[in-house]
């Protein structure tokens, strides 16, 4: 069933992308898109009841992500409508519920407040309707967890186009990354000290680093944060005109160029890799990354193509069979027809299997 996740995500993003292009949060604008894409057909087909149940659960859990930050207010509204639509069109009976996690409840309440303040009554109405129809499970986690440690985790990628813009700065410079930068800085200084002519002292010829990089970064970040808060405070009172919700980004950020977006996405990806490395190796990885200034495409390729060790089967084949390849060839000649048959059998077997 998990194989449907990617497809579901693509479909939801298509729907929400179209909804984003309408530049509105009205339910009337959502409905035609929903119908045009024929979303109710998502649940059609010959499916046994318990499979349908699992599929509905999966669809709701996947859609639930769009209802939460870091997405923009508009996408979250779209996410809410999407949940509403999925909940009412699902063919499981009794209806599968939307799981809402305790940690997300505050966000949901804030969202409702934002919507009410900005007079988006349809949003509030639909959320309240879902609540009063008891379509939520008040659960611990948004999905059931059963510790599938072997399974390769699906990277939970946030769709960059839907992301709330001010959030990016926050994501980029968190406490963790600051610490990383500080570590790298210290390391760098030490290296420089080590190669300088007078050991233990920085050579003035190569002393080009900003000493207070971290604190400066921090203060810039704080300043930006304050500015942002001020702006949002400014926009709240005039939100009476409808489409200027409190949660939405201000106009200034829209000047963000395409290139900046691209950079941000690449950076967030590469930082993601860094954070994943084990603690003991972390330091070295960061070093590598910063030396390539983070945007070098070849560097990225390096990261992605982390090669796994060959499987035992492959190794055996490489070591033994390739070396005595001639022998093997002789063998095939010898038992030619039989081997051929086996091969064709394997092929036909492969064809029968369903490939997701």
């Amino acid at each position, binding site marked *: 069933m998990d194989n449907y996740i990617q497809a579901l995500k693509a479909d939801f993003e298509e729907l929400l992308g179209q909804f984003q292009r309408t530049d509105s949060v009205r339910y009337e604008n959502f409905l035609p898109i929903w119908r045009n894409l024929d979303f109710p*057909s998502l649940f059609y087909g010959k499916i046994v*009841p318990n499979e349908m149940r699992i599929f509905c659960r999966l669809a709701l859990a996947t859609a639930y992500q769009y209802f939460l930050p870091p997405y923009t207010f508009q996408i979250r509204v779209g996410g809410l409508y999407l949940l509403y639509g999925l909940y009412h069109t699902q063919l499981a009976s009794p209806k599968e519920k939307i799981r809402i996690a*305790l940690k997300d409840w505050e966000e949901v309440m804030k969202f409702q407040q934002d919507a009410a303040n900005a007079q988006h009554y349809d949003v509030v109405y639909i959320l309240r309707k879902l609540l009063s129809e*008891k379509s939520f499970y*008040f659960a611990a*986690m948004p999905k*059931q967890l059963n*510790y599938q*440690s072997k399974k390769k985790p699906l990277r939970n990628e946030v769709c960059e186009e839907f992301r709330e813009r001010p959030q990016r700065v926050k994501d980029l410079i968190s406490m963790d990354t600051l610490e990383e930068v500080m570590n790298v800085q210290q390391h760098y200084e030490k290296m420089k000290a080590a190669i300088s002519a007078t050991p233990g002292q920085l050579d003035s010829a190569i002393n080009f680093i900003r000493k207070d990089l971290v604190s400066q970064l921090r203060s810039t970040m704080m300043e930006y944060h304050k500015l942002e808060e001020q702006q949002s405070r400014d926009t709240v009172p005039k939100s009476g005109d409808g489409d200027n919700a409190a949660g939405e980004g201000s106009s200034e950020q829209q000047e963000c160029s395409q290139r900046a977006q691209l950079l941000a996405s690449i950076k967030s990806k590469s930082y993601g890799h860094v954070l994943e490395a084990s603690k003991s190796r972390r330091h070295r990885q960061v070093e590598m990354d910063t030396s390539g200034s983070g945007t070098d495409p070849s560097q990225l390729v390096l990261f992605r193509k982390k090669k796994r060790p060959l499987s035992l089967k492959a190794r055996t084949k490489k070591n033994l069979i390739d070396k005595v390849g001639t022998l093997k060839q002789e063998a095939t000649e010898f038992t030619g027809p039989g081997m051929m048959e086996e091969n064709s059998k394997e092929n036909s077997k492969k064809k029968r299997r369903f490939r997701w």
Partner: protein
Amino acid sequence: MAAAASGGGAGDGDRADAQENVPTYEWEDKNTKAFHVAAFGRLWREKLDPALYCYQDTEEDAEHAQLARELELSEETMEELRVICSPDSLTGGDVRTDVVPHDSSLKTVRLRKRKQDYKDSLRRDFPAKQDVFASELENLAIGRRPMDPELLVPEGEIILTVNVLYPVIFEAFKFCRHHMTLQVMGSQKLSELRDAICCVSDLQVYGEFSSTPDMAPEFISKDLYKSAFFFFEGVFYDDMRYPECTAISKSTIEWAKSHDFPTYRSAKMEETTFNDLVVKIGYPYLYCHQGDCEHVVIITDIRLAHRDDCLDKNLYPLLIYKHRMLTRKCSVCNLYISRWLTTDDHLAPMDPCLFCDMCFRTLHYDKEGNKLGHFLAYPYVDPGAFN
């Protein structure tokens, strides 16, 4: 980790406590950090309006009126909203829902179409037994309400979903983890879950009975060896309900002490409710019985009870999923499930060999019940016998 932390710790550390008991991921999509179950339930109930988790239907008009008051809306706007946002406009109308449209723009639908075409191309034309069985089991309990209102699950009760995996014994279990899923209420004792877990090793009969086959099925291991324990977050919960029970976790605890491991504590299973536990969701724990039959136990979900859940207290712990296993049939009739295993048997085609009760007796004994030839016979309990 203070496992048996008293549930109602009102007063000082309450706020800090609150933050701690909001479940968050320890590893993304794998498991959460440890939290106290009862405190988690309390947090939800504090945050929610009781109307949101009660079992009664909220009246639409009352709800509308309240919403109108809160948002200071006129009646016309409310009516307009109701019409615009009606869920009726979402559905596709009267279409056959069992046909996958073939020209859809949705990726999911295209994927399903492909899958379904593939399924149709297979020779068999019936749904898998596993699925049919699972749906039947699910439908048994959904929305059940007790006749006696006393037995109604209280509103705001916590429901835990527990996966109990079968111990890995068979080769076939190496790649998929077969399990059963049970739902328990937070107020239930751990021992109630223990009684609800059925495992073949509880039903084994030890000994060789070739000369007295009628004696055999009387002593099953469950009655002989009653000790068992659960292991959650560094605490062993031993079953000590009967005088014959021994704390079988003791040796493990002592071994851990002498080998520089973090110290483990032990507690009694029958005195602990699920509300008292401090657990991680999605983290593998252990249930051990019969000395060495070890089941991995995973709590996959904790949530408040919902109107559509089974609301009959008596039905909990409730089995909601069980893997259907293949049964091994008798090697003579190939019809009935085997009940006997023989070794060193001149009459059998292989060694060891499985027989159903009927075939075993007719083949191995004469009319007076005398043993024919030399063989050793052991009672056999098939893992699939519970299907």
